[in-house]
């Protein structure tokens, strides 16, 4: 176990491009590991990338990934829908009934871990084109009724942390706001977002195609 992990990201985008990312069910111990980049290129488990997303509040995994971790969608009153909205579209998710331990390990064997309760995506609609239809679906009622006014565009947002980014490909000035990233509109959920629920307790530095994760720091 280490306090400092360095992994590669994909150019300017914080896709994890090296190391091992593991997920373990806190209750059953069932776990899955993905080795980058080979397991992403092969599309094992249907996952083609994992993004350390400073703009996502929570960690989101594809629904088909749940069964690999002994997790199934809750039934009855526990089966609440949660709606995530972004410039790329709208996602409908369920909350994992069990916490997961996420581990990120670099090529030198240094590892950082954090327990979180993630979400699993069940439905997705790209921006504008079909968000309304997605939210109106019978199966999502009554959970989507209250969110229509909240769904972008436009929405206002401000946050109180600074993300510092540099890259040989592009310069980013320090920003007292969210890191704005180019979004692949309509991208299917064949990827995993590791959100700020994981990032709390770590300092993340995006530096020239590297992601430096320092345990014990504040969000940078």
């Amino acid at each position, binding site marked *: 176990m280490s306090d400092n992990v360095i992994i590669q990201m994909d150019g300017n985008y914080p896709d994890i491009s090296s190391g091992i990312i593991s997920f373990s069910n*806190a*209750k*059953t111990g069932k776990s899955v590991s993905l080795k980058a980049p080979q397991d992403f290129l092969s599309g094992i488990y249907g996952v083609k990338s994992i993004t350390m*997303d400073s*703009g*996502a*509040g*929570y960690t989101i995994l594809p629904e088909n990934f749940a069964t690999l971790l002994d997790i199934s969608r*809750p039934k009855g009153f*526990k089966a*609440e829908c*949660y*709606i*995530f*909205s*972004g*410039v*790329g579209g709208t*996602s409908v998710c369920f*909350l*994992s*009934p*069990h*916490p*997961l*331990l996420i581990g990120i390990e670099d090529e030198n064997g240094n590892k950082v871990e*954090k*327990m*979180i*309760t993630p979400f699993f995506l069940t439905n997705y609609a790209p921006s504008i084109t079909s968000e309304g239809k997605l939210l109106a679906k019978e199966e999502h009622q009554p959970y989507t009724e209250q969110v229509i006014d*909240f769904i*972008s565009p436009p*929405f206002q*947002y401000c*946050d109180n942390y600074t993300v510092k980014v540099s890259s040989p490909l592009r310069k980013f000035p320090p920003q007292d706001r*969210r890191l*704005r*990233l180019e*979004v692949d509109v309509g991208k299917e959920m064949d990827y995993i*977002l590791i959100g*700020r*629920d*994981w990032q*709390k*307790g770590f300092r993340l530095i995006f530096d020239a195609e590297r992601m430096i994760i320092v345990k014990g720091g504040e969000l940078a």
Partner: protein
Amino acid sequence: MALLESLPAEIEASEFEKFFEKIKSDFPADEFPELFIHYQQVDDKILILGIGESGECGEQAYRAYQENPELRKYESTTRILRAPKKRFLLR
């Protein structure tokens, strides 16, 4: 620091919704903007294994399962009592 003094905490199933309401009022949203709860029901009892922020709730539940593996036999679930809307914005 755990929101409840000792976990796991046992509650009568019939009192569960009241317990939710008490938690919400005892821990105001401005101080505790995010509250997750992990629990399981065994007969007419609810066992609270974790409560707090996402990670904190998960850590408590994990410890409970480690200390008492017998708890793994029972169905369990997680609910969100409260979360800031902006956490549901992607970028």
